[in-house]
């Protein structure tokens, strides 16, 4: 496709209206075409101006909405403010990643205990009432044990003395991503649930943070339509060489990942040993 043909798609691109294959072709061209990048920037300004065509509408409760805006913003900003002392005083600098406060400890152990008790009671009832089925149940149990044994290799990656884990979350929310670091196999295992898939052309990227140092990429991953993944990443040599890391952060980056994060972290967490 010629430059002129692609240029004709710039307004549609600026409106996010290109279909995925067209968008991919246009973005490939955009990377090497300053003229099209300028055109897209101009059309984005036109799109921004379009907001002023909408008829002004007063919110139902302006004060309550302003309060909500401020409150919701506080829940997503996982950053601390870092200041650098200079002879002239304290100057704000681009914050380095700082872990968000941990959410309150959840009551999962209780839930597990209650569920287990219920299951045990149910099993006892079944056993008494349907003794004749016990042989078949026993056989099924043997089969289940065999399945568990087959999964041992998977489980080994998650537990053991050489595994660290980090839960990535925002304040007051369930963790959306957990990363297990198996030092023996030199692997990160990334699990997620309820994580919105990254927009087209973009990918999730994890960052290892050592306090006072630039973030190191741990790798990229994608989630399925339901927000789940179990992705194994090889631990990069630079991370192994530096020893333990303090924190972990998640950003959304252009496909293929970035050398350094291009946005504030969406989720952060601190590493801890599996116990």
């Amino acid at each position, binding site marked *: 496709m010629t430059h002129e043909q692609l240029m004709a798609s710039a307004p549609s691109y600026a409106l996010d209206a*290109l279909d995925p294959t067209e968008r991919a072709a246009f973005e490939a061209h955009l990377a090497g075409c300053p003229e099209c990048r300028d055109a897209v*920037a101009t059309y984005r300004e036109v799109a*921004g101006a379009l*907001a002023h065509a909408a*008829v*002004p*509408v007063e919110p139902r409760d302006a004060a309550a909405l302003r309060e909500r*805006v401020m409150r919701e913003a506080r829940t997503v900003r996982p950053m601390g403010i870092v200041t650098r002392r200079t002879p002239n005083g304290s100057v704000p600098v681009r914050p380095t990643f700082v872990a968000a406060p941990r959410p309150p400890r959840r009551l999962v152990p209780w839930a597990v205990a209650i569920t287990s008790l219920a299951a045990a009671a149910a099993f006892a009832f079944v056993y008494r009432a349907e003794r004749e089925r016990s042989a078949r149940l026993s056989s099924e149990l043997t089969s289940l044990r065999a399945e568990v044994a087959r999964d041992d290799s998977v489980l080994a990656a998650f537990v053991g003395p050489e595994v660290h884990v980090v839960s990535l979350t925002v304040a007051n929310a369930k963790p959306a991503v957990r990363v297990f670091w198996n030092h023996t196999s030199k692997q990160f295992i990334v699990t997620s649930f309820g994580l919105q898939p990254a927009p087209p052309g973009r990918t999730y990227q994890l960052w290892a943070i050592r306090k006072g140092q630039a973030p190191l990429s741990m790798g990229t991953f994608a989630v399925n339509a339901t927000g789940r993944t179990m992705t194994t990443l090889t631990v990069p040599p630079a991370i192994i060489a530096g020893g333990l890391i303090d924190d972990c952060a998640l950003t959304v980056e252009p496909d293929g990942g970035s050398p350094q994060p291009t946005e504030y972290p969406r989720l952060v967490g601190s590493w801890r040993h599996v116990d």
Partner: protein
Amino acid sequence: MSPDQRVASPASASAMVAAMASGDENALGSLYDAFGAVAYGLAYAITGTHAKAEAAVASAFADAWRSAGAFDASRTSVLAWLTGLVRRSALVQTPPDRHRPDSAATSGAPTPVGRALRALTEPQRRALELSYYAGLSVSEIAARLGVPESGTRELLRTAMNDLRSALSPTGTFDDQAMTRA
């Protein structure tokens, strides 16, 4: 959000975002006071309900607060950046098949851009409204309007060029010019 609070100069708006990036929560409040009205009008035009518009605006300003550090004033205006966030949040609030852009709401403002939008041809305006307010893609707009995809891209291109000429003969965009009635 009185009308005289709606306009911030590009330089002061950029300064607000820079202050947000360094953690100044008051700057977020200032940004909201400057752009909350246009954000709400846009969110309401897209979602059609107060509840969804409120959710979209709160989500968009949370996004702005989170990503203020990535804002680049040399590449985009605060208006384009922020309304882009509002538009995406509002479209997420409303399933695609529920979008029914209402021209009276989406292009009825007595502003230069409202007048420029009303001056477009009917097919141009419909294509632009289905894209901007309903979030439809070129192929979806083509199906809705019964025109080829190439023709739809051309409608969007000429509509955007006409708006650009009407709004910015000098090639610059100024939020104060956008809101002058």
